[in-house]
């Protein structure tokens, strides 16, 4: 009970209050713990833990292969790639210098010396530095396997964001309409094409959309047609009086309008969320430190 329950709770309380109140105490060793060691220690623990995860991954994939579950062939791929990368990371330095040139293996480096007949000696990179040496095997793996995979997964999002905006961006109610309009205005106003759309086009469009809306609410055709014509004439008259200025009136000019939305109403919403999240995190953290919530260590 002591080891399983009280010590963990004590650890949370002790380190929680130390890092929290450490900010207010003027003492060098506490300050250096709060500023530096506390997070370093976490990083170290997390680095140990990652091996636990890797073992779990291997176990599940091996089980799939052994039990011949559907798609077990792919599990073989996963296991093989794991060991491939693990070997490169832990057992091969993968970077041997001859002067400024880098070779993946000792042999290739020696070969290169033989070919060029230079008097340089082969210099292996230090352990630890081998993962960040430009031209080394680990960096090669990073560039040709890791980077394209993660960058492409990231780029898939462009397609998904398109299909999501098509499918889910519906003006179901007033809130959804606001979300949609703000999104569209930002999307158009932020890119160069937005400044090619003059306020006048937007105003004509508004007259048009307004008429469609009226059409759904009023049934009087004369009234609708009348206001449509009046709207068109009004916009045209205003346009002629302002010489069709391409950036005025600013409220209908997308780049200006997006700037206003972005710095005013958007800011208000974003700030409220920020304060809310801040409060949520502070109170939740205090709950952990004071031991009011302990279920993350299996203590209901």
């Amino acid at each position, binding site marked *: 009970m002591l080891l399983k329950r009280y010590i963990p709770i004590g650890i949370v309380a002790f380190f929680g209050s130390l890092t*929290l109140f450490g*900010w*207010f*105490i*003027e*003492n060098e060793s506490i300050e250096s713990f709060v500023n530096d060691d506390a*997070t370093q220690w*976490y990083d170290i*623990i*997390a680095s140990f*833990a*990652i*091996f*636990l*995860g*890797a073992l*779990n*991954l291997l176990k*599940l994939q091996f089980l799939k292969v052994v039990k011949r579950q*559907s*798609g077990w062939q792919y599990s073989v791929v996963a296991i093989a790639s794991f060991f491939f990368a693990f070997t490169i990371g832990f057992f091969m330095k993968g970077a041997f210098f001859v002067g400024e040139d880098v070779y993946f293996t000792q042999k290739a480096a020696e070969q290169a010396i033989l070919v060029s007949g230079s008097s340089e000696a082969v210099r292996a990179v230090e352990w630890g530095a081998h993962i960040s040496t430009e031209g080394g095997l680990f960096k090669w793996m990073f560039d040709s396997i890791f980077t394209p*995979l*993660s960058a492409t*997964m*990231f780029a*898939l*999002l462009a397609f*998904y*964001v398109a*299909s*999501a905006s098509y*499918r*889910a*961006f519906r003006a179901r109610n007033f809130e959804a309409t606001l*979300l949609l309009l703000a999104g569209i205005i930002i999307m158009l106003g932020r890119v160069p094409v937005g400044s090619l759309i003059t306020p006048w086009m937007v105003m004509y469009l508004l007259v048009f959309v307004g008429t469609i809306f009226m059409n759904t609410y009023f049934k009087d055709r004369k009234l609708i047609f009348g206001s449509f014509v009046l709207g068109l004439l009004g916009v045209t008259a205003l346009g002629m009086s302002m010489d069709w200025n391409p950036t005025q009136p600013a409220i209908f000019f997308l780049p200006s309008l997006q700037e206003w939305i972005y710095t005013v109403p958007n800011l208000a919403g*974003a700030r409220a*969320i*920020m*304060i*809310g*999240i801040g*409060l*949520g*995190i*502070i*109170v*939740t*953290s*205090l*709950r*952990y430190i*004071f031991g*009011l*919530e302990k*279920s*993350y*260590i*299996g*203590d*209901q």
Partner: protein
Amino acid sequence: MNNKRMKTYSLGFLGIALFTFALTQLPDSVHIFQSDRAVMFTLLLTIIMVMLNEVKEARISTDSIFLRTIPGLKAVEEAVGRSTEMGRPILYVPGIMDMNEVETVAGVIILGHVAQMTAQYETSLDVPVARSIVMQAARESCKEAYLTQGRPEMFNEDMVHYVTDDQFAYAAGVNGIMQRDKPAACMYMGKFYAESLLFAETGNSIGAIQIAGTASQAQIPFFVTACDYTLMGEEYFAASAYLSRKPELIAGVKTQDTVKLMLISFIGIALLSRALSDLGFTSFNLLTWLGL
């Protein structure tokens, strides 16, 4: 806020302010307090005071505390029910960050409540995680949940399993799980980055009920548009209190509310003081005085 609380808090605040003031006045020979952080210190102690008082009150009786409904939380149980009917698993993603993010811890705690429901309904639960420490914590939390529901035999350690630490590799792996296992309900509770949309869109394409909860501001819009229910920002932190109905946790929500009111009143006072000084009635500006 009733009068009694108001009185307690005013007195408490006064005490804290005096205490902080005393600390700033300590002679130079006793260097223990960072005086330039006095305002922060006062605020922090005030929040702690409010929290401890609310916990004390809540332990006496929780009946008096009203909490408005949050639709997303009701939906959790419905989703578990629907998965049971369809005989398909529930997928729970506790975010992609480690336990050093408060959001992740909250996600693991909510997982405990979901696990209690799946234990009751005898539905299978699948929790892929991106961090090993989260894996261990989530296991502890699930095991305990199955134990309290009297179904320890249904708990299987591998229902919580590690995929990889890498953001997009994890996203690819979870996408694969969704495509091949076709869960009936997907829940995303934790800290998310760009992968949120990958999850939500794939979940959508397999027709799962989706419930999301996150404090990652940039990802909330995706969840709002693509998921059935979303707990956004502060709602997410209140979720575990709603689900557990434990007095200590409800007191936490109440604390958030009380502090919120205090902060709004502070904005009001600061505005007033600024207006008075701007209009030339006084030369005192609260914010400048506090050094904010």
